[in-house]
């Protein structure tokens, strides 16, 4: 397997071929060189695409960033484009609330489910669960949105909100201040289900990097399976679990259609999970039509996309590097 820089090795190979004037061999080798170069250019595409997306969005956002300054945009409280006020803060908070609720709901379920699949389940259960998770991952966001609208919003409104009023009303993040189920909790539940397949499959992968010898060493002294998981398996996979959670969170951050269908879309600073919110992706999607009608509006929306992109890039790169390291150890 070639480990050398492809361009560098071209030269050395070409020199070597000078000494072997077998025509057909040279021709084939030349083809090989040409193909190598062509292929190499193809692999530049994904790397360049990331840069290109970032630069393009930055370029388009520059008019508003240079006029208002980044901190005024990010921490501005008021969003009134026709008066020239572009404050992202309520939307940023909305995104954070929705993401945190989704992740908090998904993570315990995902950790438990993936431990079960990796440590306890028989092959049969696994081969039953895998396609279910795949299907769950394949369902389009808009269908999740419909489901949220038809099932989750009424459920939150009719069941969870009254329960919360009754038992948790005194705690401010659980207080019910709005009459509908279009709120952060609904969006969080929908998001939790959407990101669960990804988190579970990444965590499952991580658990299977732990050597069986270690499990057996613990079982051999009479530990129960849970004691073995708790004391031997979990300490080994900490960073991987964290990476899986961050990866899930970054998916939740960018989810657009499904969230915007159930979250209420009221630009306010939320104080409770029963409040409506207006996350950044929803802001972009809802207003794309008027983008060109007001000065700087397009730049504002594209800089919202840029903010989202930068945060997600950071989350993604960190967690993927951790995961690549862990799975390669195997």
């Amino acid at each position, binding site marked *: 397997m070639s480990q050398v820089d492809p361009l560098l090795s071209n030269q050395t190979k070409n020199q070597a071929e000078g000494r072997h004037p077998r025509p057909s061999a040279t021709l084939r080798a030349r083809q090989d060189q040409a193909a190598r170069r062509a292929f190499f250019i193809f692999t530049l595409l994904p790397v360049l695409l990331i840069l290109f997306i970032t630069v393009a969005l930055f370029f388009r956002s520059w008019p508003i960033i240079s006029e208002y300054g980044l901190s005024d945009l990010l921490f501005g409280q008021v969003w009134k484009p026709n008066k020239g006020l572009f404050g992202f803060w309520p939307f940023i908070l909305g995104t954070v609330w929705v993401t945190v609720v989704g992740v908090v709901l998904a993570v315990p379920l995902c950790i438990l489910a993936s431990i079960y699949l990796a440590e306890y389940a*028989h*092959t049969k259960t696994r081969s039953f669960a895998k396609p279910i998770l795949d299907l769950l991952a394949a369902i389009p966001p808009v269908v999740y949105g419909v489901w949220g609208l038809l099932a989750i919003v009424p459920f939150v409104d009719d069941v969870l909100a009254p329960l919360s009023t009754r038992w948790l009303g005194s705690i401010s993040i659980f207080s019910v201040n709005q009459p509908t189920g279009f709120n952060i909790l609904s969006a969080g539940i929908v998001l939790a289900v959407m990101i669960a397949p990804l988190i579970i499959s990444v965590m499952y992968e991580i658990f299977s990097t732990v*050597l069986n*010898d*270690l499990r*057996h*060493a*613990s*079982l*051999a*002294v*009479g*530990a*129960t399976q849970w*004691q073995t998981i708790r*004391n*031997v398996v979990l*300490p*080994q996979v900490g960073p991987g679990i964290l990476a899986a959670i961050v990866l899930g969170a970054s998916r939740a951050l960018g989810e657009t259609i499904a969230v915007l269908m159930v979250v209420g879309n009221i630009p306010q600073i939320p104080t409770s999970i029963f409040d409506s919110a207006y996350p950044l992706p929803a802001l972009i999607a809802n207003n794309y039509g008027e983008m060109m009608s007001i000065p700087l509006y397009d730049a504002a929306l594209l800089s919202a996309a840029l903010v989202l992109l930068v945060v997600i890039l950071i989350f993604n790169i960190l967690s993927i590097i951790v995961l690549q390291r862990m799975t390669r150890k195997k």
Partner: protein
Amino acid sequence: MDAHIQVKNLNVYYGKQQALKNVNIEIPKNQITVIMGPSGCGKTTLLKTFNRFFELTENTQLTGEVLVDGQNIYDASVDVTEVRKVVGLLAQRPSPLPMSIYDNVFYGMHIHKMKKDRKEYKAAVQHYLEIAGLWDEVHKRLHDPATSLSIGQQQRLCLARGLAVEPEIILGDEPTSALDPISSQNIESRLLELKQQYTTVIVTHTLRQAKRLGDYVIYMYLGEVIEAGPAHEVFNNPQHERTKAYLEGQI
């Protein structure tokens, strides 16, 4: 003979393949029993039925009985973790747990809540590291990760870890096959020292080790026990053709 383990009509299947065929043997108390035979003959499988480790493989099936101190460890009322506490295992490859040297020995005792306080645990850890002949080498770095030890030291640590839960039986699945000659010898001499207090069952594929360690010998071939008896009898006067052939190095 004072039998510690009795195996009665034992059959084991991996899926449809039969790994053990109608095994009936007795393993004497406080002696070293050596199970030998060509690879794939089921000796490791037999060993792993003694601590119910073979169950960790999926699609296995077992009929018959394995009695430890006269009690069938496959009885429905049996708690498998109690079995594994009484029947310790020294694995083929040393597998220190990913924690400190101290914690490796502490681990099993802690799991079974065997001691009252830190002082007792500390004393016990020292005691078992001494028995395993490791104390002098590690007492200054008890809190270093166990993986920092050499392979031979790791295997002795695993021995200490196994002994710390006060088993009555020690199983060894080719416990020296991953070690260098000096470390192997070290482990062998530990096992010889310990045989007064523990019933030891060792699987080995080297005849010389069998001769050095064995008080009692079981010879297996294709999932069946061909011959079992005191070492001097089996080695000097094998009753079965196959055993003879094996001892002469034909298999």
